[in-house]
């Protein structure tokens, strides 16, 4: 396998010295869904030293349409995504150390993983986790790469602590009830396009070619043939609580985290968002009905059923997930639907 990286070292901005740098680095992927599996494959093929993959969920049939690495056998075995990804990555490049963590990424669990990490790649499906990544990245001065997609739309932005604005500068409030892949669908090319940007940025950061790092926020729509980049330098804020002069890292505090608890004596998990959400239940109902969910409701709550699992969502954003005691799985279902 001597020749393995020859086409990559031939690329002048990487070269032999860049390849050695890539080999010496440890990258964390938060999420092993569509963005996570494809970024994992790219970095494993590129020969990164160590890859930590954090995911709380298992492989389902509806993942196969856009999530690389996974096979029908993984679905039948209900393998955890992080573990299934590791199995496949080991077949691709046994020299890369793959650490599979089947856990819910929270402020506490993520912080434990950060010593010696060079880069965090955001492959999550919700803004709560992204804001946690954003605060931790600032606290430990680790670059991270935001990426997200839905339908044929995607966006990406690279955050370098001390240099660029952070996600909290760009978004003063966490968006509530946006479109998710479970309500608006997703096509694999949108995933590929975000991953192309994220993995290119990752390679630049791993070889320490800081001048090449993309300074703008990119957004595209592949179906509508649109691609735009926006400059960001005017929105870096000295009073930002995440990256400003006196940071408090607000998203690392328990008050800003979604809570999950098993309801006593019932096969049910309660999910409670950090702030009251004012959900438009009628809109949510019609979005989910299109997504193959069976939806019933009244002005106060929606009952949502799919694959034998039932979720009741209240208008303030609280939810009950019936038929499970698995906190991480319940939270995954909730955030996948509500963002």
């Amino acid at each position: 396998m001597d020749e393995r990286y020859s086409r990559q070292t031939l690329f002048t901005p990487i070269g032999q010295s860049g390849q050695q740098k890539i080999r010496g680095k440890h990258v964390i992927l938060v999420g092993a869904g569509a963005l996570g599996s494809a970024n994992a494959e790219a970095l494993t093929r590129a020969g990164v030293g160590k890859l930590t993959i954090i995911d709380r969920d298992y492989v389902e049939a509806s993942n196969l349409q856009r999530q690389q690495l996974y096979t029908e056998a993984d679905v039948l075995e209900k393998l955890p995504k992080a573990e299934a990804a590791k199995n496949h990555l080991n077949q691709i490049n046994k020299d890369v150390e793959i650490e599979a963590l089947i856990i819910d990424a929270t402020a506490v669990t993520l912080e434990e993983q950060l010593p010696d990490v060079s880069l965090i790649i955001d492959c999550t499906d919700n803004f709560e986790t992204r804001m946690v990544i954003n605060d931790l990245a600032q606290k430990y001065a680790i670059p991270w790469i935001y990426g997200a997609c839905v339908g044929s739309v995607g966006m990406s932005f690279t955050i370098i602590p001390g240099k660029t604005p952070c996600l909290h500068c760009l978004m003063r409030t966490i968006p509530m009830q946006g479109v998710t892949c479970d309500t608006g669908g997703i096509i694999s090319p949108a995933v590929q396009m975000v991953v192309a940007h994220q993995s290119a940025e990752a390679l630049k950061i791993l070889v320490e070619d800081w001048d090449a790092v993309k300074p703008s926020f990119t957004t595209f729509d592949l179906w509508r043939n649109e691609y735009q980049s926006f400059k960001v330098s005017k929105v870096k804020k000295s009073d930002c609580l995440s990256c400003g002069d006196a940071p408090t890292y607000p998203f690392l505090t328990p008050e800003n985290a979604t809570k999950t608890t098993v309801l006593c004596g019932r096969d049910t998990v309660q999910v409670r968002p950090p702030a009251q959400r004012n959900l438009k239940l009628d809109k949510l109902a019609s979005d989910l009905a299109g997504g193959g969910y069976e939806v019933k409701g009244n002005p106060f709550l929606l009952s949502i059923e799919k694959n034998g699992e039932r979720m009741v969502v209240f208008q303030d954003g609280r939810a009950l997930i019936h038929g499970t005691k698995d906190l991480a799985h319940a939270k995954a279902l909730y955030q996948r639907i509500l963002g």
Partner: protein
Amino acid sequence: MIKVLLFAHLKDALGKEEVSIDAAGLTIAAVKEKLAADFKLEGLDAVMAAVNEEFADEDTVVTDGDIVAFIPPVSGG
């Protein structure tokens, strides 16, 4: 007049990708309020804004001829 560009679900909600409105002198926050009132666009509070291809804060004042883009952040992954 300023030109407003809409992306992703905002474009779907409006049914077109751009609209010209009389908003010179308003802040981005006020432009959002105007769009919400005139076109019944919902959920603009957490939407990011750019003026002339540069990200802008809520209190940025727009002037005649500006191109203002509203970019709803996407969460899927």
